[in-house]
């Protein structure tokens, strides 16, 4: 086993911290991280709970391979009930925090209740205690990390925290660790803030040592690292260009949603692409991209570190943003850029830094700004209401809105509620490009049929990371399928969703799956945790996790009608490129998807399915 075998339970209401033994039967059935944390949540929290009430819980969970030498073994997941969607929230992050927490000797920490005053959790191996955080409240993520490291006199402390957005109730506030790695989606940071919990500061010196078969493990991880190195995506594309390698690729297939999905190709794609980041600027002759950066244990290293043009209007009088900082990744570059028609690469970098600094999800934020700009274009919202001329393409409006949103000022308060609530308030709910209330990321469900189905059926609402069929439909991994074709996609979506759930729950990064399948994860899991973790067993565990999440959502009140896409994707055809004339064929795909899943017409797992998966 490579679970630590211990969890922390923190009652914020009473201020107590307890150690508990990990339920090993659950660990074997749900692995760790996403699966295991969700198992604890669904067993302990009523699905109908108000997400921002003390009765909701929030869990930081590592996986069995977190903190080991397996490539990308630094991941953790934050699990709670989402205030943005009302569905399960499950946001994964890299950086170093997860491994540090595991090396302190803990698999997860469960927070219950609500503290009367701001607190942070301090963990130093066996020592775990709540401490006053009133001096940190009102501080950004970056200030919080710096302040804690200084006051603890330990620069090696790792911090997972919220910025002002999480304190102020922005519904898509993120939990951020190591300055610019985030459990970004579904408002996990909002729940953290609602509990008056500012940060978790961790120092772990014990390490992860209880590997089932160390010799087999070291051999397996070395072989699998070699596969990552030899693969064109994980060995070359991602380290050189990051996820931004996709910008031009997705635009070429006509799948780059633009101006709130009015268009499906962006004329400014090349200006906000990986290639643009690596090209010297006309203004100062320097490239925006400084270097790449790995998360803990990662031999891919897709992370971006960038530096802004000091003369750019967003930072010319703000030298605190002139240092190197987390750079643009594809989803953020799309949401802050194409979704709003903004092609000013420096403005996008500024906005992404503010998202990191104060902790918000750039996808939901950017997509909501896209909806605002469309409402402005239609004359529904005015300059007086917004405080700025918010025409599509305005970098000034983007920069203004990001500041207003993280600080909950002016119209930023409404942008902070997400596109579903905002568009409904102004009488145009169809203009929210979301499923289950969570905004879509950077792929058009009309031009890429499978991802549309994946959005509609994702357990956390609009999301590419529950079933990244782009790998198959655009990149040809593991086999090429036609993005315009909807036949065969229900089965493809299911396979991706189940495999992803297993990977997410192991503690490794989903980006390994550009090169690995479950057959590559299995020997690493088997050597670390026990021989029973075969490829087939991992497949089954993945499917079990998916159905567990689904049943939580069903209990929370979601039904088959919530497995939907906005009208625009179902009836307004793509206007340009290879996908011209296409809409998403959701109605064709959905019955087949339910059949493949073993669900009834209401989207509920049948008794037979539940029994097959030991639910």
């Amino acid at each position, binding site marked *: 086993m490579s679970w630590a075998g211990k969890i922390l339970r923190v009652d914020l209401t009473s201020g107590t911290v307890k150690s508990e033994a990990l339920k090993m039967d659950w660990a074997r059935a749900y692995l760790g991280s996403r699966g295991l944390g969700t198992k604890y949540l669904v067993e302990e929290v009523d699905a109908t709970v108000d997400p921002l009430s003390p009765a909701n819980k929030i869990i930081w969970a590592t996986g069995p391979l977190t903190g080991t030498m397996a490539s990308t073994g630094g991941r953790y997941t934050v699990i709670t009930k989402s205030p943005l969607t009302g569905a399960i929230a499950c946001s994964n992050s890299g950086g170093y925090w997860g491994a540090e927490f595991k090396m302190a000797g803990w698999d997860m920490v469960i927070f219950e209740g609500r503290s009367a005053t701001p607190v942070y959790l301090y963990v130093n191996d066996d020592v775990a205690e709540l401490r006053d955080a009133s001096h940190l409240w009102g501080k950004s993520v970056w200030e919080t990390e710096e302040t804690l490291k200084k006051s603890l006199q330990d620069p090696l402390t790792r911090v997972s925290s919220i910025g002002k957005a999480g304190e102020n109730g922005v519904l898509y506030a993120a939990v951020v660790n190591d*300055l610019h790695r985030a459990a970004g989606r579904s408002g996990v940071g909002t729940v953290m803030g609602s509990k008056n919990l500012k940060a978790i500061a961790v120092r772990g010196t014990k390490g992860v040592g209880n590997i089932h078969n160390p010799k087999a493990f070291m051999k397996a991880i070395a072989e699998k690292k070699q596969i990552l190195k030899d693969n064109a995506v994980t060995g070359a594309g991602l380290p050189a260009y990051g996820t931004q390698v996709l910008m031009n690729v997705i635009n070429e297939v006509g799948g780059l949603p633009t101006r709130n999905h009015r268009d499906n190709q962006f004329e400014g794609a090349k200006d906000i692409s990986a290639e643009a980041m690596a090209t010297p600027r006309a203004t100062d002759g320097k490239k925006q991209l400084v270097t790449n950066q790995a*998360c803990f244990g990662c031999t891919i290293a897709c992370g971006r*570190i960038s530096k802004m043009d000091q003369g750019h209007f967003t930072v010319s009088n703000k030298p605190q943003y002139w240092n190197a900082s987390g750079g643009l990744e594809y989803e953020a570059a799309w949401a802050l850029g194409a979704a709003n028609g903004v092609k000013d690469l420096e403005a996008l970098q500024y906005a992404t830094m503010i998202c990191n600094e104060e902790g918000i999800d750039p996808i939901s934020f950017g997509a909501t700004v896209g909806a605002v700009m469309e409402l402005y274009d239609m004359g529904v919202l005015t300059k007086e209401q917004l405080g700025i001329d918010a025409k599509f393409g305005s970098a000034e409006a983007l920069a203004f809105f990001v500041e207003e949103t993280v600080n909950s000022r002016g119209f930023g308060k409404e942008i902070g509620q997400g596109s579903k609530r905002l568009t409904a308030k102004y009488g145009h709910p169809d203009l929210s490009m979301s499923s289950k209330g969570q905004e879509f990321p950077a792929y058009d469900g009309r031009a890429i049929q499978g991802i549309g189905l994946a959005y509609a059926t994702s357990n956390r609402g609009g999301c590419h990371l529950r079933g990244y069929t782009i790998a198959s439909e655009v990149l040809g991994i593991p086999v090429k399928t036609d993005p315009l074709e909807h036949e065969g996609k229900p089965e493809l979506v299911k396979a991706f969703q189940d495999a992803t759930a297993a990977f997410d729950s192991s503690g490794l990064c989903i980006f390994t799956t550009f090169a690995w399948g479950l057959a590559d994860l299995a020997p690493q899991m088997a050597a670390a945790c026990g021989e029973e973790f075969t490829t087939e067993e991992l497949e089954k565990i993945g499917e079990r996790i998916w159905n567990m999440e689904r049943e939580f959502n069903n209990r929370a009140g979601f039904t088959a009608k919530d497995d939907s896409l906005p009208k625009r994707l179902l009836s307004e055809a793509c206007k340009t490129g290879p996908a011209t004339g296409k809409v998403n064929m959701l109605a064709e795909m959905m019955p087949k998807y339910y059949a493949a899943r073993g669900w009834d017409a209401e989207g509920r797992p049948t008794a037979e399915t539940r029994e097959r998966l030991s639910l």
Partner: protein
Amino acid sequence: MQKLLHINADKCTGCLQCEMACSYENYGTFATAKSRIKVFDFHTTGKKVPYTCTQCDEAWCLHACPVEAITLDKATGAKVVNEATCVGCKVCTIACPFGTINYVEETGKVQKCDLCGGDPACASACPTGAITFIDANWTGLGKMEQWANKLGNQPSAT
């Protein structure tokens, strides 16, 4: 031939595979806190730099030790701490100009890089070639080659 750990910080991504390899080699556990090689992440510049003992010939730590617990491994050139002899006085940690020998609370002894007896785990684990174990006399060979390549003339055809 004596070999040395050679650091090329430009290639470091900050993945900490070296730190895990070091702790696993010496303690049988993945614990970056126990590593004898440390990667420094200068986040305001984006620089990541692995750093460890360079095995000085006239090693300050070795000369400072009052009980001769630090000795030369003639085969590898490493300066090695003999834990049975070390009394935990920490004078070596003061003597070392580079900070690469450190006290370990759990054992009451000091620890430093010993080149893993001639096959350093950190170099084997580094995925990018930022840490290599190469001929001590020719640590500059790679850079020389790089610069030489800039000077290259085309084979003369005229």
